[in-house]
């Protein structure tokens, strides 16, 4: 999969993964405390944070795998720095990354407008929710509660990961430091939509 990648793209992806791995962990700790008071639903509305790196990397690099691999590395970094879920989190990272990747794959890695990015956020939300449903024992909660959680997560995925991820990259793009990556290479209109 990595054969067609330039080294500088791999390094960029890893760097973002490491940086966001740390941000993820900070939010996880904050979320844990928060969840202690109001239950697992506490995570749902900020859940989009945990998908952002896959969308940022894919939006910049635009090559198959950018979403899954970056999310997996970020999860691995979280494990390395210490968190409750442990190695299992890497699996969760793979699943979330696959969710985002699925949305990009569905468009043939051709379209990267705001809707596709939001769709990727939603994809990650749904994949991660299904995974969480079986792994996390949500089965014990009532259906209404579960649906509320899902709704919140989808919204958060679309807004925080999709819209937020795009905002971060567009800001970076304006600083001129993304020269030589796919995002500046594509037709001008596309990168700005």
């Amino acid at each position, binding site marked *: 999969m990595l054969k067609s990648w*330039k*080294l*500088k793209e791999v390094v960029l992806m890893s760097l973002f993964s490491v940086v966001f791995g740390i941000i993820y962990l900070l939010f996880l700790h904050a979320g844990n405390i928060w969840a202690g008071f109001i239950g697992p639903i506490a995570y749902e509305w900020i859940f989009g944070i945990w998908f952002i790196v896959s969308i940022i990397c894919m939006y910049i690099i635009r090559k198959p795998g950018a979403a899954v691999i970056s999310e997996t590395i970020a999860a691995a970094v979280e494990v390395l720095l210490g968190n409750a879920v442990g190695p299992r989190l890497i699996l969760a990272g793979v699943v979330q990354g696959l969710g985002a990747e699925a949305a990009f794959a569905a468009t043939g890695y051709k379209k990267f407008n705001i809707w596709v990015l939001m769709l990727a956020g939603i994809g990650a939300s749904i994949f991660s929710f299904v995974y969480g449903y079986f792994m996390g024992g949500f089965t014990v909660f009532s259906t209404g509660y579960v649906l509320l959680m899902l709704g919140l997560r989808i919204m958060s995925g679309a807004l925080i990961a999709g819209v937020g991820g795009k905002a971060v990259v567009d800001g970076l793009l*304006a*600083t*001129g*430091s993304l*020269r*030589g990556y796919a995002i*500046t*290479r594509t037709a001008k209109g596309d990168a700005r939509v």
Partner: protein
Amino acid sequence: MRVSDVIQFIDVSFRFPDEEKVILDHLSFSVKAGEKVVITGPSGSGKTTLLYLCNRLYPENCDGVMNGSLKLFDKESSKYAPGEVNHKIATVFQDPDAQFCMMTVEEELAFTLENLNIPREEMDGKIAAVLELTGLTDFRNAVIQQLSGGEKQRIATACALIMEPEVLLLDEPISHLDPYTGKKFISWLDELQQERALTVVAIEHRLDLWDGFFDREIVLESTNRVNELMTRESSIQGSQSLYVEAVHNDSFLKPVSFHLQKGEVAVLAGPNGSGKSTLLKALCQLIPAKGTVTPDRLGYVPQSPEFLFITKSVRDEIAFGGGTEVETLLERLYLQNVAEAHPFAVSHGQKRRVAIGAMLADGREIILMDEPTSGQDAASLSELYELIDERARQGTTFLIVTHDMEFASAIADSVLLMDEGQLTGKFNAESVWASEDLLTAHHLLKPKGGTPREVCFA
């Protein structure tokens, strides 16, 4: 026996994407094995770009547009896998801060050996040998990030040599070295070249320092002939302007005290790693330091100019602090044709001039410059000289770190010497050039004076 071409450009043109300007225009030349070639041309003429084509980093990594045929070891460069040809072609880059990927010197060297699949048992020996050869044994476990500019540049050379390459590409290799170390570097490169029949392709503005090392010069664009720098008349205007009392830090810098007068141009010189950059940073309060500095608003041109940039174009960068002479400065610093470019996407020498221009435009009363001369062509140097001279006459005080002795002797009213974190003293410029002891103790060389700067292959 036919000596084969290691590098062959046939009608090569190159431009960056999104720019109309063609950097290299229908260029043809070839370099044979064992040759020593120097590439010259004014700052911004595309020398570094050319070197990046030779080690195959471009055009692939910048999406540049290349036409024509470029052969490395008789094979089209685009046919190599990334990193493959770099086993035989080693590079020392221009910017000391932009050429390392590992944390410590040892790891960086080991990384190179791993890439070449050298067996583990041989690694230690090879690392020790190359450090010995380059006189860097003490730096084996040093953290690269924490070395001085010149030290980094020497480490980069060691990293290139440990590959035992067939071709060595050098981008202004001595511009950050102190004069003595620079001299030693050249004679040692000479020995090495003869021993291993290395092919050397170097970029250099200052051929006079190389004593005919090169066989051949490839001129990318001819430089305007400029007049030799004349020793300037002192511009000191009585009153005091910069007071430095016992400035020091906990780790390296010993207490430093000196005064400069209004309009005074002082040069700060000393060996690599003696603490010149550290002192300037301490004066600007960029690093924690004790002692007093008055006044506290100083202009500062750092050794790595990118540090200063906060806007998106060269013009904005110079105009940032207000000031009315933006256009004049752009023109005088030869920046008008890159005025709209992003400050990070111009050549190394141009970046340095942008930083200088920004500080001059700001109208600071005291300006500290860290190696403003490094990587500048003769025309830029001469313009820099004029600018400093004018401003000094208007009352600006300058403290300039430089390894360029000709420039120093032409411009300096006084010379501050540093060694091992300590200020040796402030001297009258003439007396420094006259004292063998002072010069040797601080790795300096007596300026030739009188040799026109442009005499190279005449």
